[in-house]
């Protein structure tokens, strides 16, 4: 062992060197924050750069003294050890206290003062806010709501399973792409309110310099003023269960005119969706829309096959609840029934109260789909209007 070890060491070092060399030749390494696009982001970057210089200087100075000592005060060159064990005399005390004073200055003046202003700025979410965006984290997607215009929708990952499992080549925005990005106007101060329906999530877009927790049952706030149009990508930053790594944040910043047009278009879409809730749907319509909604919202836990991942995420195929009665004979909700579960969730589990996030049509469709798929053959269906009555 003692003879083979040095050879092993040489080989390991060679392997490490090779990886590093080939890596740096191919890759575009990022050594710092991505380009900031908000005032807070710029502030944070310049503060970070300044702090990195300060701590690098501290590191180099302190360890230069140490390395000098290691070279100059070696036994092998015949150094004789001194016997002192503390400062003696006014001059030595002075030199002992100087580094202490320098550090005090660095901590509370050089770093402390810019940090103070940055904190005050960062937390000032209300002064001259132009609009409000409400962000709701839920396992494992984000819901965005524009209280001014009544727009509300869910944003989920669109990277296909095949790419994640390595069966297909990974796309450019692998894991950082969603179906419905948040759209925000450039140059406006947006006050962002955050909350969650289940566990704690954290909304983070690195280029905004903003990261804030979304806490169930509470509102937290932060703000952004995006200065350049573009698409900005981030992720959930707080461990929130199995698909924590798969709930990206994508923000599309557009000029104001474009934003206004988008709001109008979205409003029309929502009005159409609401109207569709009032009419009677055919079974095929419900099944088709139900599958679409199920795959997007439910399949992460209950799986596309309806087999679930027991015991945390029960199977829907053959489930007693799903195969139970739909509504009471007088059209009322039965406690702990299928409809109750989907609408009101189950406390203490990942099953959310979906009535807060899904439309009447979505709920009716997904319930109908679940009762008539994965080998479940209830044969019944529920209309959006019935859901509306139960709310």
């Amino acid at each position, binding site marked *: 062992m003692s003879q083979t070890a040095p050879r092993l060491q040489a080989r390991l070092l060679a392997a490490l060197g090779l990886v590093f060399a080939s890596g740096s030749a191919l890759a575009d390494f990022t050594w710092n*924050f991505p380009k900031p696009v908000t005032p807070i982001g710029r502030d944070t970057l310049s503060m970070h750069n300044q702090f990195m210089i300060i701590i690098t200087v501290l590191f180099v100075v302190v360890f230069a003294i140490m390395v000098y000592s*290691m070279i100059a005060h070696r036994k092998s060159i015949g150094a004789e*050890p001194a016997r002192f064990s503390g400062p003696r005399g006014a001059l030595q005390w002075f030199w002992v206290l100087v580094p202490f004073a320098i550090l005090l200055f660095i901590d509370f003046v050089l770093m*402390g003062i810019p940090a103070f202003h940055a904190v005050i700025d960062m937390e000032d979410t209300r002064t001259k806010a132009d609009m409000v965006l409400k962000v709701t984290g839920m396992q494992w997607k984000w819901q965005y709501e524009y209280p001014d215009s009544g727009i509300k929708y869910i944003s989920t990952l669109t990277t296909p399973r095949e790419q*994640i499992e*390595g069966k297909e080549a*990974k796309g450019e925005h692998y894991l950082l792409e969603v179906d419905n990005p948040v759209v925000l106007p450039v140059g406006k101060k947006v006050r962002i309110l955050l909350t969650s329906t289940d566990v704690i999530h954290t909304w983070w877009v690195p280029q905004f310099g903003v990261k804030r927790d979304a806490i169930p049952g509470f509102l937290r706030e932060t703000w952004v003023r995006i200065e350049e149009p573009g698409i900005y990508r981030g*992720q959930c930053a707080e461990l929130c*269960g199995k698909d924590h790594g798969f709930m990206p944040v994508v923000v599309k910043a557009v000029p104001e005119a474009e934003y206004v047009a988008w709001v109008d278009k979205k409003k029309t879409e929502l009005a159409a969706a609401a109207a569709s809730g009032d009419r009677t749907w055919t079974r095929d319509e419900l099944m088709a829309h139900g599958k679409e909604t199920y795959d997007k919202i439910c399949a992460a836990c209950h799986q596309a096959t309806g087999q679930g991942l027991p015991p945390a995420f029960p199977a829907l195929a053959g489930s007693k609840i799903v195969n139970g009665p739909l509504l009471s004979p007088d059209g009322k909700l039965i406690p702990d029934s299928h409809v109750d579960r989907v609408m009101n969730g189950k406390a203490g589990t990942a099953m959310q109260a979906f009535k807060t996030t899904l439309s009447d049509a979505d709920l009716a469709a997904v319930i109908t789909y679940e009762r008539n798929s994965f080998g479940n053959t209830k044969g019944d269906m529920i209309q959006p209007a019935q859901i509306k009555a139960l709310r």
Partner: protein
Amino acid sequence: MNTASHALDHHDGHHPTGLLRWLTTTNHKDIGTMYLSFSLLMFFVGGAMILGVRAELFQPGLQLMKPEFFNQLIGVHALVMIFAALMPAATGFANWMIPLMIGAPDMALPRLNNWGFWLLPPAALLLTMPFFLALFGIGDGAVATGWTLYAPLSVQGGIGVDFAIFSIHILGISSIMGSINIIATILNMRAPGMTLMKMPLFCWGWLVTAVLLIITLPVLAGGVTMLLTDRHFGTHFFNAAGGGDPILFQHLFWFFGHPEVYILLLPVWGLMPHVLSTFTRKPIYGHTAQVWSFVAIGVLGLIVWAHHFLTSGLPVPALLYFMYSTMSISLPLAVLFFCWIATMWRGAMSFETPMLFALGFIVLFGIAGLTGLVLADVAADAQYHHSYFVVAHFHYALFAGGIMGVMTGVYYWLPKWTGHMYSEKLGKLHFWLTVISFNFTFMPQFFLGLAGMPRRIPDYALQFAEFNAISTVGAFALGLSQLIFAYNVWRCVKGGDKATDRVWEGTEGLEWELSSPPPHHSWETQPVIKAG
């Protein structure tokens, strides 16, 4: 027991042999050995878990495991490394060395000492058992919430959370018993003439650690008990719908969790001056200043906890308070660095393995301290927090600071414990491989964090691929290098060149006046410390 053979035994040998010896021993050296062996074993268990994680992260995509299992590995890795590897190693040092250093025959409470150790294996078993239960279809595996067990994710979790809660209760009881024992020993059993201010710094580091453990562990125990009742008995401590608050759990957890960092590091900071003084052949610089720095860090450590969740939406005055109080920890810490370097200054240095590890510790722990200073800044923390920057930061603190500190102590004291010298050649090889591969593993993680990679994700965007690949190669080299350490220790226990009583040329202190290895009962006659 056979009375005839008992009568033949002299004062030294009246203890059972074989397994029963280890089960029933009340001897501080036997218990110290058990703590250290358990720690080494669990170090490899925790290491194997994280190599699984690093292997999954070698490339983007899910290759080896499901995200659920990934989440279990990261949390249990942390709990094992903190509670079953680092803390027992420090307690092992305390058991072995405190009586030797203060001139006591044994620890003050030997039976409590035995119990304190024997609670550890069942606790470790409880923590890891859900992995095996899941193989037989019971439950869905170990705790998958990260070691922080944040509610409401931990309220939602499976039976792994309950196992972790009970394991933490038992580990906590064990640590509190160990702490009571150490405080009782230090306060009551010092040799005549050894005033508290003359007491060796290692004992001082441990005294502060023991006090911190007794203050903070009951809070953690309370927090996880509230979690347990939220899970099973309908309480709503952490549920807003019932008037609770999820952030309350974070306050309770980190009131323990931040002092825990110093609990892991203070014994190492206590050890460093001894090693530096030995290999520079020069007295420790600033003994008194270091004592007061330990105390100051202990006190400050208790009042800065919320910097672990600065992004959770604390009010501005709280943000400013936690920012400035955290920054102020850099002052006593700087005193320690100053004293370490002043101890080296104008000495006559030689670079045996313990000295190499001590120097490596100082430089790399310096990186942890400096990055900690910038992390305290609330606005910049919004970028660093929950990212790989933090992961790199605390591994510089707890691997380079904690584990390399423990290795310093093992190489320094192993000849005293076993009576044999370890292989210096293998020791140096181990040092260089560890330092190089450690930096290959964790330096890239700073840049990953700055680029925006969150912690605790099993799969990542393509821009993070290169640094992750380097980090994984580094981690495997780091893990494999530790086999050299285990082999070197084992070889030294089995045999090797005879160690002298003083072991190293420049040693000072009572522990070096006993034989190597020391007699079964350390100091049968109390030594007397001369005044002055």
